[in-house]
């Protein structure tokens, strides 16, 4: 990849706004994520952080502003300075290189772990079953689930399901991974195993945006931490400053509210 391409941020959000009916949930969110960077978004529930994440891969649409992933404007085409919504087909194509991991894992329960992982590479990317299967097995080894390839999701613990879900997202070879509170539905015992898989992924250079309530984890893994409140970015800093003694009053208030 050329130096210029590397210089272009992986994700640029510029003044993103969204309404649910009368209620404005995103009030002009602007953020940048560089390639290989890990951004953690924290904030109280209802602050719009999950909604923002879901706008990036168009599980939700936004009404104003821009989200640009790589060089692509997400969800819209700009015609004479105005936004024109993309067709469903175009939106589907944009999702391919953006992986997402959900709070509730959302593994397809009617498929085995292996089938879950090879499904999209075969059906969406048109890979041969043999190639897809080989990469799936490699990914399962990476997340420590080789023994569970032929198990059905319901037979796995929450932590195992979430690791399988991470493997499923990685099988599409995404250039960006979105994590929506990946450990919020887990027992404390299994949270660690999922966080270590995410840490390993960060170390491998994957660009990631993680919405989390795990402050210790955010501090350890993030390149930058963002506080969102009431649909707005309230503070943005490197972890040392964000969690340090000289952080903003708002961050202090939030951090003390969750302890």
């Amino acid at each position: 990849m050329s130096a210029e391409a590397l210089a272009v941020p992986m994700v640029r959000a510029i003044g993103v706004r969204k309404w649910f009916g009368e209620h404005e949930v995103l009030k002009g969110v602007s953020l940048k994520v560089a390639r290989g960077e890990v951004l953690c978004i924290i904030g109280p529930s209802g602050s719009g952080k999950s909604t923002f994440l879901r706008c990036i891969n168009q599980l939700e649409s936004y009404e104003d502003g821009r989200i640009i992933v790589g060089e692509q404007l997400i969800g819209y085409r700009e015609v004479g300075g105005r936004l024109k919504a993309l067709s469903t087909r175009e939106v589907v194509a944009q999702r391919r290189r953006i992986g997402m991991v959900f709070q509730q894992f959302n593994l397809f329960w009617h498929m085995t772990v292996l089938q879950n992982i090879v499904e999209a590479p075969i059906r969406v990317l048109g890979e041969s079953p043999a190639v897809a299967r080989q990469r799936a097995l490699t990914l399962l080894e990476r997340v420590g689930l080789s023994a569970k390839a032929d198990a059905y999701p319901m037979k796995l613990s929450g932590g195992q399901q979430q690791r399988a879900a991470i493997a499923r997202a990685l099988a599409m070879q995404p250039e960006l991974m979105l994590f929506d509170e990946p450990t919020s539905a887990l027992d404390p015992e299994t949270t660690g195993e999922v966080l270590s898989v995410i840490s390993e992924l960060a170390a491998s250079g994957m660009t990631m945006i993680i919405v989390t309530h795990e402050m210790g984890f955010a501090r350890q893994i993030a390149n930058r931490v963002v506080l969102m409140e009431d649909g707005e970015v309230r503070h943005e800093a490197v972890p040392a400053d964000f969690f340090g003694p000289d952080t903003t009053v708002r961050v202090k208030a939030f951090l003390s509210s969750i302890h």
Partner: protein
Amino acid sequence: MGFDWSFFLDRILNPGEPYLLAMGRTVAMAVLAMLLGLLIGLVVGFGRLSRLAPVRAASAFYVWLIRGIPVLVLLVMLFSGMAAAGLFRFTDVNLFGLKLTASFQAAVIGLAIHEGAYMAEIVRNGIQAVARGQIEAAKSLGMSSWLVTWRVVIPQAARVIVPPLGNDFNHMLKTTSLASVIGVQEIFLLTEGMSATTFKTFELLTVVALNYLLLTTIWNVIQGVIETRLRAHELDQPVYGWWQSLRYYLMPRPGSVERRR
């Protein structure tokens, strides 16, 4: 006069070619009408959840209308009523050397139209039972609407759809007897013909009742295997494919009664 056991047993052991042929018609009618009804049910069921208001309205209208008309009336209307009005007349056709009589066609279509309305409600319920997160996960992997429907929604809805569908097919196997009214030579009409000449009405009706029971019993097993397959993910031991599902369903094991439920 009593029950003529020897006549009864003879009818059971030596049904004869016309009776077996009639049995074939009964089964063929039920299977074809069910398949066609399922197809109608899928279209109308998805239609009821369509984003387009006219499609939703048309689907709801179909269900409302058809569920309010007796099958018997529907069958006679299709076969005799429309012909009498000069709207449409069913004619015999030859399909790959197989003669499909006009009444048989009308019966299959009438039964399917009726079944489709009930199937639509079953399908709609099945689709609505699929968790939102499953669909979002599929979308997030770049799957198209068609792939999401075909690979995630339908298989997961099937888990909910199949038990009531099996119930409907059980009904269907027996409802085919109404086709006798428009002259389809199925087992009930044949039985009536025989009883008119032999006067062994009670024996013959017992035989035909047992035959319907046999059909529904076979279907019970088939339905059990299909349900086992669709529940593979939640069984006490992994079951892969149809063959293992059949074995799992049929194999007597301790506690197997509880497991099948």
